[in-house]
């Protein structure tokens, strides 16, 4: 499989009056053609910012990509000008968001919102775009697509709106779909349907998916490869089966332990103690050290590197460093 998206040592920082927030600090990852890669982590660990950096949307009034490379299909996205980036968005890379209710324009019928990328990128005429939009609405499993195309977002349910978002996202057959917690705002039965649909589209068109989530259930169901992020860094990554069966990093282990298991009643569900550190107060260390049950002296003063820990499995933890012996 060919590499589609390669992120190398990406660093996206935000400049607040109180100091620099290193939201993404040296993240590398790779998405191959037709592969689903999941980024997992707590709120605020930088997973959404990583995705927005790929779309070229992290740079705003206070944020900036300060280093690294984002290579998509042979082009460095960070070097493209505004217009080149715009023609890429929605056409080759599409993205869907967490909140379908607020991601659609309240004053435009949903059909027109699906038509727009078709008109913009594929240069379809209005009629052809509308016909294609209705087709797409049918493909995402909504009955009576002709009527729904004329409906306004406030007339549809959250699950239907997320289907509409997906229809708009896949309208131009993108090579990569970035899904930022696509099912978090939906109830569980709809979640399963949406994930099922994403999987089918992926299989159908050899699309790659970069899925961002904090739900390990979703990861287990969707991912080929998993990247675990903590405080702006990758702490562990590996094939999904390998990572779930042999987690190495204490954080990954904690995440897996804090997931409820069906038919397995526990008095108290495990929770990782403490909170994500304040990004302004980070010092050189393993950022997880004050929440870690196996914390050593070296963890407080030196930062672990991402090392191979098996076939396509890497971890950044001093527990697995032979070098520890000499420190």
């Amino acid at each position: 499989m060919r590499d589609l998206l390669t992120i190398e040592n990406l660093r996206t920082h935000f400049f607040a009056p109180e100091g620099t927030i290193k939201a993404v600090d040296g993240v590398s990852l790779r998405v191959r053609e037709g592969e689903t890669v999941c980024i997992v982590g707590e709120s605020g660990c930088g997973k959404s910012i990583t995705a927005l950096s790929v779309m070229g949307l992290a740079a705003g009034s206070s944020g900036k990509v300060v280093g690294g490379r984002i290579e998509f299909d042979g082009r460095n996205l960070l070097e493209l000008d505004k217009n080149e980036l715009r023609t890429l968005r929605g056409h080759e890379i599409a993205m869907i968001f967490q909140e379908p209710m607020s991601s659609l324009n309240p004053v435009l019928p949903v059909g027109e919102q699906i038509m727009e990328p078709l008109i913009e990128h594929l240069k379809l005429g209005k009629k052809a775009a509308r016909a294609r939009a209705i087709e797409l609405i049918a493909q995402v499993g909504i009955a009576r697509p002709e009527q729904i195309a004329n409906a306004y977002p406030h007339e549809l349910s959250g699950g239907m709106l997320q289907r509409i978002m997906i229809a708009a996202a896949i309208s131009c057959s993108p090579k990569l779909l970035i899904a930022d917690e696509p099912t978090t705002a939906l109830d569980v039965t709809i979640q399963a349907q949406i994930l099922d649909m994403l999987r089918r589209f992926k299989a159908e068109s050899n699309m790659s998916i970069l899925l961002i989530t904090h739900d390990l259930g979703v990861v287990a169901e969707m991912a080929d490869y998993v990247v675990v992020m903590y405080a702006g860094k990758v702490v562990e990554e590996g094939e999904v089966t390998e990572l779930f069966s042999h987690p190495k990093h204490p954080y990954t282990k904690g995440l897996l332990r804090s997931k409820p298991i069906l038919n397995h009643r526990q008095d108290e569900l495990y929770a990782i103690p403490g909170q994500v550190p304040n990004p302004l107060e980070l010092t050189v260390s393993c950022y997880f050290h004050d929440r870690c049950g196996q914390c050593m002296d070296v963890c407080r003063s030196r930062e672990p590197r991402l090392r191979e820990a098996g076939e396509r499995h890497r971890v950044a933890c001093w527990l697995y460093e032979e070098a520890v012996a000499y420190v």
Partner: protein
Amino acid sequence: MSAISGGLPAADTPIARKESVRTSLWALALRRLLQNKLAMAGGIVVALMFAICFIGPLFSPYTDNKIHMALMNKPPNWKHWLGTDALGRDVLTRVMQAGRISLTVGLASMVLSVFLGSLLGAIAGYYRGIADQIIMRIGDLLLTVPSLPLLFILGALLSEWKVPPEDRMYIVMLLLSFVNWPGIARMVRGEVLSLREREFMQAATVLGLSARRKLFRHLLPNLVPLLIVIASLNIGGAVLSESVLSFFGLGVMPPTPTWGNMIDAANNLIDFQQRPWLWIPPGFCIFATVIAVNLFGDGLRDVLDPKQKR
């Protein structure tokens, strides 16, 4: 891709099934507006005012503006329902003709100032940066000068430059729009600033839509409710300002009648005490129009402005 749709589970039942409720936001707003009695009363008065002023003179036998010395200052009677003025002209006809001018000036200056204000405000809010700075600082400058003295100065300049009376009406429209746009630009800019950060705008960016498409297809339709409210409230203000200017002799000049200069013509003790038919009708028209427009505008704001939702 049809293989996919076959295997998918049927989606949840659409809410929009009941045909009678298949309504846009606009239809909903209209329905709520119709229930607001005060606003509807205002709307009807405004509509009547326009209708009477524009159609009424067609039925009047006194539209020639001729001076009839024999008919000077007659109180209301069967031939002249609102009496005659110092030159023997029919007051009712003149009030209607004045209404044409005053309402046209109000409407035109509203359209112009809303256009200017929303265009500049949208550009400032959407593009930010240097465009924002320039536009808003010019606007601030205009806002720091009280508009009435500013209009007086400009009006006085017009008299000085001997602008022909027929053209004064258009100049007054321009003047009023010139002092009104900054307030509108501020409101529009504020709204655009908040709209552009909304998630659906980011979603539009992610779909790779062009800036023009985003501005005109996504932002502008969301501004329309605000613009309608601003526009309706603005007409009243413009009618009032035009009357004030004309009253001070700085706006539209006689013999072209406006409500303001009709009142000005009766601006002496004898007329005021003994010939109320000269100034009550135009005064009432200004009063009724402004109140009605504001009631209607308030009603519109209640149903359209998203920030005022109950």
